[in-house]
């Protein structure tokens, strides 16, 4: 499903070069729920951004859904993001001027769906996250947990193969975090592949597979079954 081989990502600024990912290798199979942990600055977000085609990389090869996406132009990348990938952000990233339905509709408009199709999908997605009754509300009228559920609805409405989440519960209290996690698990059970970065070991443990990123490289804990904190073991 997702295959990264020897991905390198170097950030160059005027003074420093940061090697955010070094010879990064990872395979993710269809239907997996992967939790990504690791120290701050280790390259988790960088990995997720590259996986989601939000930024390019310096070296290596990346195949997504059988397609080599290492060198795409901007429009091609936008199209794949739109059709195959759903994003969930730590800060929810809802558009404050748009109501919930309009927010969920955003990627569907870029997809070019007609208005009936958009309406159907918006209703279905908001229904699925339990906010079907609040379509006309503005994001500011919701709690953080509810906002994140709207963001999930927005990610789901396009029926992506992939869900990428960067600390989706980072801004939520533990109760809301658990609700969001349950929602993600349900989505995964329905067949969507999920990669989630988290700092919360408890949530990470609930995922099928844990990987840890340290210093821009992967430590894999396939089918980690609970117990103590995973120990770093370089792959």
């Amino acid at each position, binding site marked *: 499903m997702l295959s990264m081989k020897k991905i390198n990502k170097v950030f160059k600024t005027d003074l420093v070069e940061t090697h955010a990912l070094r010879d990064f290798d990872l395979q993710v199979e269809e239907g997996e729920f992967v939790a990504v942990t690791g120290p701050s600055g280790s390259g988790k977000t960088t990995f997720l951004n590259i996986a989601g085609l939000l930024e390019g990389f310096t070296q290596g090869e990346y195949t997504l859904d059988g397609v080599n996406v290492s060198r795409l132009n901007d429009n091609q990348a*936008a199209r794949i993001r739109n059709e195959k990938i759903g*994003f969930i952000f730590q800060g929810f*990233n809802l558009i404050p*001027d748009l109501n919930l339905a309009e927010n969920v509709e955003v990627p569907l408009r*870029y997809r070019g769906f007609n208005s009936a199709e958009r309406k159907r999908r918006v209703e279905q997605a908001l229904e699925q996250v339990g906010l079907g009754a609040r379509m006309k509300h503005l994001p500011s009228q919701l709690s953080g947990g509810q906002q994140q559920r709207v963001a999930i609805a927005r990610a789901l409405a*396009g029926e992506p193969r992939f869900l990428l989440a960067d600390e989706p519960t980072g801004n939520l209290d533990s109760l809301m975090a658990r609700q969001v996690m349950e929602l993600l698990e349900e989505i995964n059970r329905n067949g969507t592949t999920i990669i989630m970065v988290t700092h919360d070991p408890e949530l990470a443990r609930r995922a099928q597979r844990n990987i840890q990123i340290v210093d821009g490289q992967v430590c894999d804990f396939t089918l980690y079954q609970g117990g103590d904190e995973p120990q770093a073991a370089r792959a």
Partner: protein
Amino acid sequence: MFTIKPVLSSLMRSRTGPLLLLLQIVLSVAIVANAGFIIQERLALMQRSSGIAEQSVLSFSLYNFGEKVNLPQQLKRDLEILRNIPGIKAATSTNMLPLSGSGWSDRFIDGPDPETAKSTPGFAWYLGGEQMVDTLGVNVIEGRNFRADELNHSITDSGMKALMSAPLAKEVFGEESAVGQIMYQGSDNQIEIIGVVEVLQGAWVDSDQFDYSVIQNIELNENRSNQFMVRADRRDVPALEETIKQALRAENPDRVIRNFNTLRELKDMSYAFHAVMAGMLSIMIILLLVITSLGLSGMVMFNIQRRTKQIGTRRALGARKRDIVGMFLVENWLICFSGGLLGGLLAMELGSQLMTLFSLPMMGWQWPAMTVAGLLVITTVAVLLPARKAALISPAIATRTV
């Protein structure tokens, strides 16, 4: 690329910024449309043909203060001298200068009995010699000019002959020919219309009867003060002032010769107010448009700052660069178009107020329409420049900012 509804609802929710811009556009359209219209009216006034070779006609005044001067003799002599100066092709004395803002006016009546006769409209009343026509360079399109032997020297003489400007002839005689018609000044003075000139404007540029003129065969020769017009090649005109002064003083030093102006200079002075007005209005239009486009660009730049994360998020969700540019364009087109619509209505209202206040003609709807069209172009350019920067915002912003 261009979607309207969510852009509109987002606009409706952000209120003040767009509202201020809207107001600015409403006012800009109202003012620019009317100012443009007024400028156009003024320019049209200035571009009317005077019928005269303005740059080739030099005018001046002459005052004889000598005690023993024989005025009729002196005039005759002066005209001879002028006509003999190399470069001068024609010369005449005149009672008034065209386009100068001051002159003589009169009316004819169409019968000997002032009680029953119908009066013509007022016209500029030029009195001069047989070379008046050639000096001005007006075009005789019907009938003929008067001859030297037909000249009178007082307005009460008999044997009056006149040329009429075509617009006046048409107004007075309609489709009938003016040539051969007899008109009256009071019950005694008969005037025979012997010719029609195509165009000849009077002295007052703002008059409704500016195109109504008559040239009559009267060379007034009993005045100490006289005005002259001479016709030369345009290139020769600048040197003529000195030549004329020397030649006339050599003949008789006891006089003041001054006020040398080409008719073009007189015309420019008469239209100076209009020109200043048109210039100031043009500057105002440019300023308004510059301010409006700065406002548009400024607002777009402000919105890009404010919405950096939103733009990154949209890109992450699948927006192409051109979708981002399109979003800003649609947003500002909406503001511009609704501002244009309101501004157009305000412009028409303002136009009709100005019409009644300053007796201007009514502005056509084309003016606001053209202004709005122009503003749409300006909006597009003013928005496109910053919006293309916005499109360069990396989608990675979405995960990098919290």
